[in-house]
């Protein structure tokens, strides 16, 4: 047996990879619960790919049969309902996990040097994920699928000169129909998952190159023992592999609770309007995007101008990308930055309120709160270059605390 292993290892770097990324990759020993979400994101990605492949076997990308193929899956295919609910639950779970993952980055300064590129790749993953979710949402061809496709692809029309032509490229025609479903399926099933997987691999490699941050924001590589290992580090395998398996177990319990007992989550995970087949002649009265896009939708609605709203939306989506350069303070973690901590709290509350506003019908009463929260959101990023230079910080310890 050992002979076989040696033969393989002489020809493929399994042993070296295991050392570099698992048994001799040192992670800080003070990880808390905020550090489970990265590996959970991998778990959800796997769930989506597996459930997605099995759904694809029964799906029909045709405007006459798409909705019915979903019904076939739900009622005729053995365990089809489970495949469908796994995929819809996974989609929302993906965003819950990713938002918490990003919040961790924000709190502990994981976007700061030397992890700027790591943050950029992660943010690219977030944008690609939004595209993937949007494309997938159109495929069941319910009423919300249709109108969501119509509205979002209409944004492209706003682009000067080439807008109309680009929109017809995206839709495959002048309206949403079979041509749209066919190409959205190709993007959703092949193109975007390949991009996503490539980005995730890049993300992990970039992380391993610099090593993980930790809740104290201290660089563990600054204090090494006589053998060169970080004093505050522990080998990823077996400590964090085992711990992550436990975390995965807890997560799967919650996942299954939702999937089996509350898959629609009161119209949040599967909107009621999408249980009606696509009707190109009538927009549903309560049209909203999925909950995970809701804060941005609220921002769009806050601006009373078509192009202006799109510009603000684009800026708002892209601003966090520049965090490594907007935040000038060398102290990483909120534990030692009380002012920044307060700013993050305000940002979080603003985003949550915006998310709630985005799910409500567009009434005039909500305009002012929406605009205030949009202002607070933008202010967080735009004031950071100044505030981070002058904010008082606590003394950062040399070695990690628990």
């Amino acid at each position, binding site marked *: 047996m050992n002979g076989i292993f040696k033969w393989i290892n002489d020809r493929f770097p399994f042993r070296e990879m295991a050392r570099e990324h698992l048994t001799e990759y040192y992670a800080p020993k003070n990880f808390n619960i905020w550090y489970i979400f990265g590996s959970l994101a991998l778990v959800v990605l796997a769930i989506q790919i597996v459930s997605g492949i*099995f759904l694809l076997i029964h799906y029909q990308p045709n405007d006459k049969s798409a909705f019915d193929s979903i019904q076939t899956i739900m009622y005729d*295919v053995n*365990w089809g309902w489970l*495949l469908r609910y796994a995929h819809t639950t996974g989609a929302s779970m993906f965003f819950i996990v990713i938002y918490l993952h990003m919040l961790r980055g924000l709190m502990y300064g994981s976007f700061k040097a030397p992890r700027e590129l790591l943050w950029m790749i992660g943010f690219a993953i977030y944008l690609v994920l939004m595209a993937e979710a949007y494309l997938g949402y159109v495929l069941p061809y319910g009423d919300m699928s249709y109108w969501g496709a119509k509205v979002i692809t209409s944004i492209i029309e706003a682009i000067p000169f080439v807008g109309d032509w680009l929109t017809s490229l995206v839709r495959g025609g002048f309206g949403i129909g079979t041509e749209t479903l066919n190409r959205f399926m190709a993007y959703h099933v092949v193109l975007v998952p390949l991009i996503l997987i490539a980005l995730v691999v890049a993300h992990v490699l970039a992380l391993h190159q610099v090593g993980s941050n930790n809740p104290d924001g201290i660089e563990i590589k600054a204090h090494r023992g006589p053998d060169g290992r970080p004093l505050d580090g522990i080998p990823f395998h077996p400590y964090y592999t085992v711990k992550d398996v436990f975390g995965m177990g807890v997560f799967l319990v919650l996942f299954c609770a939702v999937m089996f007992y509350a898959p629609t989550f009161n119209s949040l995970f599967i909107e009621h309007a999408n249980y009606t087949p696509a009707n190109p002649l009538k927009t549903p009265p309560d049209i909203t995007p999925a909950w995970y896009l809701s804060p941005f939708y609220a921002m769009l609605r806050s601006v009373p101008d078509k192009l202006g709203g799109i510009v603000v939306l684009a800026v708002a989506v892209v601003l966090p990308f520049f965090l490594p350069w907007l935040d000038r303070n060398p102290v990483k973690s909120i534990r030692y930055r009380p002012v920044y901590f307060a700013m993050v709290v305000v940002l979080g509350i603003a985003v949550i309120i915006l998310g709630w506003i985005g799910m409500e019908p567009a009434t005039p009463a909500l305009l002012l709160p929406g605009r205030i929260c949009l202002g607070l959101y933008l202010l967080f990023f735009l004031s950071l270059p100044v505030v981070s230079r002058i904010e008082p910080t606590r003394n950062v310890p040399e070695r990690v605390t628990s």
Partner: protein
Amino acid sequence: MDQDDIDDQKRKFLTAATTIVGAAGVGLAAVPFVRSLEPDASIAAASSATVDISHIAPGQQKVVKWQDKPVFIVNRTPEMLASLDQVTPKLLDPDNKHPQQPPYCNNVHRSRKPQWFVMVGVCTHLCCSPAFKPDKGSVKPGWLGGYHCPCHGSFYDLSGRVFKDVPAPLNMAVPEYDFVDNDSKIKITSLFPKTKLC
């Protein structure tokens, strides 16, 4: 971390126990995915055929296609039914020892009701479809009515039971079926699991 405090036995046990439970979990989780690949309920529904028998005259046979096979439905006359006991000595398996029919058809007339005969018209020799020959004396002297296969000459009686000394080894198969719509229709659903067609 004090090396002396590590309990290796406990660690081995926990690792093994977790692995076993995890493997069981993965195995169970795989079941829905694999089973979803099986033909779904709509295909199973399309696999039954419902036949209107109200237009079949006494003594007549109707042939319908079910799952791409010919099914014979005969409105047997009392004369035809009487012949069943007369041919018994000439039959290979008159008592249906081989389960070529569902349990409720395990009788002389191999059907739910003596009058209505339902059978998959496939010769148990090499799968040709035997010809319906109900008229006395029509195939050979002493012929009381039944089936004659054109391919290699096997003979069956009016309950599809195979004769001795012919190439075919078994009685022709009777499928699972029900009377529906106030007995005006017969619904053929599936093959009894133990039957062999050909």
